[in-house]
């Protein structure tokens, strides 16, 4: 299993969610973060204090998937998040050793399969 972490623009979050939804990836966790990459830094002013803002708001997706779904997931993330302008973000993939579903204690593959909803 893989843990796919994607950093995307906050204004694309709902698009990414839809793309994942379409690809039937239903488990996902997101975090509001800030990031710095190749984006142009902007200047802000607060009374007499001028600052260079080196961080931009971003959103971090975390999706654990079984190996077979890795490509689909990455594709979905890219489709939903891409605008083509600097700052679109990155995807990081790491190996997952174990997954546990807290509710039932099932691990790995068992934890991979969500129950059907009616």
């Amino acid at each position: 299993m893989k843990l796919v972490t994607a950093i995307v623009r906050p204004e694309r979050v709902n698009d990414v969610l839809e793309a994942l939804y379409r690809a039937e990836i239903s488990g996902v966790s997101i975090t509001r973060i800030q990031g710095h990459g190749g984006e142009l830094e902007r200047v802000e002013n607060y009374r007499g204090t001028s600052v260079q803002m080196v961080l931009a708001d971003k959103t971090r997706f975390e999706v654990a998937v079984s190996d077979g779904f890795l490509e689909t997931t990455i594709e979905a993330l890219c489709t939903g998040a891409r605008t083509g302008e600097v700052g679109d973000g990155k995807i990081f993939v790491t190996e997952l050793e174990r997954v546990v579903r807290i509710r039932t204690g099932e691990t790995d593959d068992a934890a991979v399969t969500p129950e059907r909803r009616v």
Partner: protein
Amino acid sequence: MTGIDTGDTAWILMATALVLLMTPALGLFYAGLVREKNTLNTFMMCLAAFAVAGVSWAAIGYSLAFDGDGALVGGLDHAFLAGVDFAPREGQTIPHLLFFAFQGTFCILTVALVGGAVVERMRFVPFLAFAALWSILVYPVLAHWVFGGGWLAARGTLDFAGGVPVEMGSGFSALAAALVVGARKDYGRQALIGHNAMFVLVGAGLLWFGWLGFNGGSGLGINQAGILAFVNTVLCPCATLVVWFLLDYLRGRQVTAVGAATAIIVGAVAITPAGGFISPGWALALGGVAALPCYFAIQWRPRTRVDETLDVLAAHGIAGLTGMLFIGVVASVSWNGVADGLIYGNADLLLDQALAVLVAPLYAFGATFLLLRGIALVTPLRGSETEEAQGMDIIHHGEEAYPTGEGALLFRTEPTRREEPASV
């Protein structure tokens, strides 16, 4: 308009606006004291007071409180605003209509206050029912006793701006409500702390501002009692702040901000009944004195099993009670033109005050207890534990206080689902 003084009326117009503001200010204050997931529900309990008590007051509440001088409750001659127009009531110099509105804002605020006891768990619809009934069966009765010529007023009990109906009325009703509705799921097991101390502070600031109309307007015009009450309402909370700072500091070498906000409320409550009756010097003293029982009640209550969540009893019931008794001790004819207290040689007043302090809590507690028990027969007062865990805002209002918009989809058509799900 004959019999109307423009200056008196100008001030009571303004005072009415100030008291009206107190209800949203209370919403802000209360919302800061609850967890984020219950923010809107808490504020909505205050707005609900406008809906139910605003209308019930016009329909019948005002009449029950202020029509005729029956001993226990008023008549129905002013129901549905009958006979309430521009001509002033006997002995007043402001339009009757304005008097009606001014008093109405008191009833609305008091209803909102009671909600503080049951936030974070009580269902919204039963609360609406309770608020409506309470605004008819409890507030007007207590108001009649002291303001409308009822039996306490007749005996000589002094209550300038609502120690009986507003402060003790809400405080002891809150206790009953907390007992009937029961404690929150994790009460006593987890720390359940408010989510925004700035709301609490700003709310307290706005409440104090409004209270100047609440107390200062209760003279119903520009007169000695009103002026005295106004100035005392500036001074008394200052003294409460001093003592509260001290108590906090002695206790933990730290002066808490939520404590300071609470001190403002306590000071303003304590002076509510006493405002027009005691000298400014005594008002300062009262501010300091009232801090003590309220401070300790607020420290002690969360260690009990009574989840009277926002400490309406301590901050309003007990502070109001202290103010009521204090009148009996330090009232002076030279300031109020009405009656002296104990230290000026008149013990009777203290007895009359003590009587009110016994009877009003009993009525408020008992009536609220029965009311809620009654409603519970019809519909459950609270939801499931899961609902409580999710929070009242999502369950009862279908909203979040601070929506991020993330994950909020305007789906038109549900995407169909394939057989084999992919994600973990």
